[in-house]
């Protein structure tokens, strides 16, 4: 991975070549503390490796990109151990930017089937449907984890590789960045004034003082600036008086924060799925539940959840209220509950609404559904209550037409025959909250609120097979060993189906049941479905998400730029001061900034009253001195800008 902050040719900036290292005699020091990048290895870069010889001096560490931190030091010993060499090479390969790019692509590609095929974690029913519709491809896809894409081994392989790669390159990038933060910026080139936008002028100060003044000026602009030591020498033996300054380290810091937070987020998601659980439970108004495994209709827990030690809270549903728009669209749901957050804690009141769960530490209770539970009373011939209860019905449509199944295993009827076959009762029906007789569809619901609750119902007697140890779906009834009853009720006598009007005491009782029993549906309660979720690592996930955004903003917004000043002795004890700089991206106002810095440094090195200094334009290689501007210090780029704006004035 190229994490290069310096010589890596690129950067994601608008303008890669601006990343050029000073094209003068500073290549070795600059390059040596740069991590280098995969680009150099490919030789495909625009080639801002300032000196190929420099990369030759850093053979494998350079070529491998990010791996230099781990492999750079041992690079010279690579040849001796082929296995080690191979390992190091593949590690470098894995931690290269190119591999990261490829893996990112693979990850995107791998996610696609997860959105096109039905997924078990979202809708298991549709998976079953798909499997029965596609007898040949279905099982094949199933074997390839096509219906559990996001839990598939190949999906995990991709993101784990990506994150190993990320961690690998991060560890070395962090080291380099830390080093960069504590070392001086790369030294000034021979003629900084010749960089684009650079300029030069005469100063009455001797070189050492001029550079000191320049350093102070640059520091004043919050550049990290360091001046060469007084006895420093250029390679040709002349004294070296220069300042190297740099700003914008936050860019790389932000980038690292972003990538580290990415790893952190993955960890939080992973731990969350190991230590979290979720369960759903249905509660009829007036009832409650406690947070134990048996209270749940459905429960899924992470591998490391101790189901015996779920947080022991309990909750009672006092009231459920749903309101609807006139067209039947839902407007608001609310469940008023009384709960005890823990064992032996006083109870409290709360309202749970969609989007507003009840929060109990890292456990949350969500309202995810609701429906109707008519209340049935079974009485014997003498009018004594044999059985009663609320039976939740499964909503089938937006108007809450719901399917009801009433199973009464202990109706008190004697078993039949030598086999002692149980005589049990079952009813199945359709509940309609606002009932209307439709000429073609029979009794239908025209509004979701219970304004005219009705129940179309049929009855059975026989063996429900409930006591045989085989788990049964409470919402369906198997009538294989049952006989349909003929009932008396509001629709008349001797009918198999009756329609009960729950609001009307005269029209809500079925008679003619075996042994003279009668079944009354005397009211309807609402039920709410709650989902209990626990994810102990949610907070961490959120924290890393915030860091991801902050890191991204810093990494994409901050610009890194360098400025160099060099002073060379001039006749008469003064010096010639040159300034120049580079930014990783052009067109972002660096020219203007450099212009300001130039003025600043010039003012610092040409004290007021020192007399007009003669400007030497060392930059006019191409535009024939066009840059010579007032006071002789106008940098070239600024001059060009000025001309450009003049032109746009003319043309507009």
């Amino acid at each position: 991975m190229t994490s290069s902050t310096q010589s890596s040719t690129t950067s994601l900036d608008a303008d890669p070549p601006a990343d050029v290292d000073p094209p003068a005699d500073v290549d070795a020091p600059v390059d040596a503390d740069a991590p280098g990048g995969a680009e150099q290895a490919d030789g495909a870069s625009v080639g801002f490796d300032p000196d190929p010889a420099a990369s030759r001096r850093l053979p494998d560490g350079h070529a491998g990109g990010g791996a230099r931190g781990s492999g750079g030091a041992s690079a010279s010993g690579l040849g001796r151990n082929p296995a080690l060499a191979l390992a190091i090479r593949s590690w470098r390969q894995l931690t290269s930017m190119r591999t990261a790019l490829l893996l990112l692509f693979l990850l995107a590609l791998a996610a696609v089937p997860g959105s096109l095929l039905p997924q078990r974690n979202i809708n298991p029913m549709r998976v079953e449907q798909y499997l029965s519709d596609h007898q040949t491809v279905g099982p094949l896809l199933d074997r390839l984890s096509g219906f559990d894409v996001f839990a598939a081994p190949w999906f995990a392989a991709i993101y784990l590789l990506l994150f190993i790669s990320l961690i690998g390159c991060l560890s070395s990038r962090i080291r380099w960045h830390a080093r960069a933060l504590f070392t001086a910026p790369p030294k000034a080139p021979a003629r900084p004034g010749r960089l684009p936008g650079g300029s030069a002028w005469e100063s009455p100060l001797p070189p050492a003082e001029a550079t000191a003044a320049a350093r102070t000026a640059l520091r004043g602009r919050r550049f990290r600036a360091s001046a060469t030591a007084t006895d420093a020498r250029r390679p040709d033996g002349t004294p070296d008086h220069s300042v190297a300054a740099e700003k914008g380290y936050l860019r790389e810091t932000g980038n690292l924060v972003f990538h580290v937070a990415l790893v952190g987020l993955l960890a939080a998601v992973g731990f969350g799925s190991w230590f979290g659980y979720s369960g759903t439970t249905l509660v009829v108004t007036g009832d409650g539940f406690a947070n134990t495994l048996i209270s749940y209709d459905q429960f899924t827990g992470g591998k490391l959840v101790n189901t015996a030690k779920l947080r022991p809270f309990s909750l009672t549903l006092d009231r459920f209220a749903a309101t609807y728009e006139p067209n039947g669209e839902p407007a608001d749901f609310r469940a008023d509950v009384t709960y005890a957050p823990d064992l032996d804690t006083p109870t409290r009141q709360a309202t749970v609404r969609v989007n507003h769960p009840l929060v109990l530490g890292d456990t949350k209770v969500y309202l995810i559904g609701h429906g109707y539970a008519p209340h049935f009373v079974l009485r014997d011939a003498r009018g004594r209550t044999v059985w009663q209860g609320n039976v939740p019905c499964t909503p089938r449509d937006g108007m809450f037409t719901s399917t009801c199944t009433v199973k009464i295993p202990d109706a008190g009827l004697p078993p039949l025959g030598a086999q002692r076959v149980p005589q049990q009762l079952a009813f199945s029906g359709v509940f309609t909250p606002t009932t209307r007789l439709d000429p073609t569809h029979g009794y239908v619901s025209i509004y979701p609120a219970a304004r005219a609750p009705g129940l179309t119902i049929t009855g059975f007697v026989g063996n429900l097979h409930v006591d045989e140890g085989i788990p049964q779906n409470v919402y369906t009834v198997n009538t294989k060993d049952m006989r349909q009853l003929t009932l008396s009720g509001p629709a008349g006598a001797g009918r198999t189906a009756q329609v009960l009007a729950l609001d009307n005491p005269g029209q809500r009782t079925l008679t003619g049941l075996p042994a003279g029993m009668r079944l009354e549906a005397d009211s309807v309660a609402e039920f709410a479905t709650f989902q209990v979720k626990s994810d102990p690592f949610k907070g961490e996930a959120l924290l890393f998400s915030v860091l991801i955004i902050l890191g991204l903003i810093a990494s994409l917004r901050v610009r890194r730029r360098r400025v160099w000043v060099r002073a060379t002795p001039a006749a008469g004890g003064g010096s010639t001061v040159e300034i120049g700089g580079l930014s990783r991206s052009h067109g972002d106002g660096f020219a203007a900034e450099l212009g300001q810095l130039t003025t600043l440094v010039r003012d610092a090195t040409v004290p007021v009253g020192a007399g007009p200094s003669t400007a030497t334009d060392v930059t006019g290689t191409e535009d024939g001195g066009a840059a010579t501007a007032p006071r002789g210090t106008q940098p070239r780029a600024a001059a060009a800008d000025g001309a450009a704006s003049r032109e746009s004035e003319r043309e507009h």
Partner: protein
Amino acid sequence: MAVNEGVSSLSDHLFGSGMAVYAAAMLGYAAEFAFSRLGTRGAAAQATDADAAAAEVPAARVGADQPAVLVGVGGAAASEALGGDAVADPDASALAAARAREIEAVRQRDRAAHSLAGGNDGDVQVPVRARWVGRVAVILTVLGWALHLSSVVTRGIAADRVPWGNMYEYSSMICLIAVTTFLGLLTRHNVRWLGVFVMVPVVLYLGFAGTVLYVAPGPLVPALNSYWLKIHVVGAIVSSGVFLVSAVTTLLFLLKERWENRLAEVAAGRAEASRAMQNRGGIVMRLPSSAALDALTYRVIAFAFPIWTFAIIAGAIWAEAAWGRYWGWDPKETWSFITWVCYAAYLHARATAGWRGRRAAAISLVAFTALFVDYYLVNLVITGLHSYAGV
């Protein structure tokens, strides 16, 4: 929460007139673009000496025309930049030539940046009348933008809620953001040439939204009624509008890049110049350099990417509040993720040798396609938990 019929139809009228004004602006940009002539070297020479920039900026095109000469020039510049001493070394001459190319690349990009900042006017000459048409087009765009904005606001008033609850409203907002992005760019750079390329998709898109996707304003379903959702949707819409502009500039980059390569071939004598080239005409020729388009694309994407990231995270927070899980690989989430990964890949590609330029551009288009799938195919074809799915 009754729907105000009067305000609702006002919103529809504003929408229609905004679109009509955009269409007029589009024609204006197109006219300015069509009537502009390319500045030739001859034209540059005509410019008075005082206009130093006029001579300098067209050099970017000269570079494409005559690479060989420029390498020579660059070589000279390079040896000067090296302080003169490197050329003396015979070993260094190959090095100097290599560096010459690098420096020329810097120059080119420098100019690219300039032409981005100062407009490509140095390169293209626009007759005064066409220029006026262009300026009127900008005024029309601002006017259309104001009408469009009022349409969105009145829609919100009519429905008594935030105006981003269904696909018609999203699409309208995305276009509004795309136009805002263009106008925003216009305040900082002279990118009037971009006008026609932004307005064409915007007008088509609005037409699609106003007919196929249109629904009368109504209340939100309870699951949508959360302030995290509002934040999330705003983030998604803003970044999508900006991404739309990046897709446009990417396409223009690809066009221009092909053209430049062809030009280089012609200059090297390996290919015949097409009629359009001989006439110095062709729309592509009038675009800024591919480097400038590339830089612009990067900047636009780099602006939108953190917003998209934020939108996904806000969506996760909302999902956590609404459904009890912050991430569940619902199709909408999956495609947001795919889009995010693709744009991250674009940013990485820009930093990887051999992937810059054309390949990065291809990734940008793939990413935009994923975004499109996320908005439309997921809602219309694949449906998930997101309750507004299915229009």
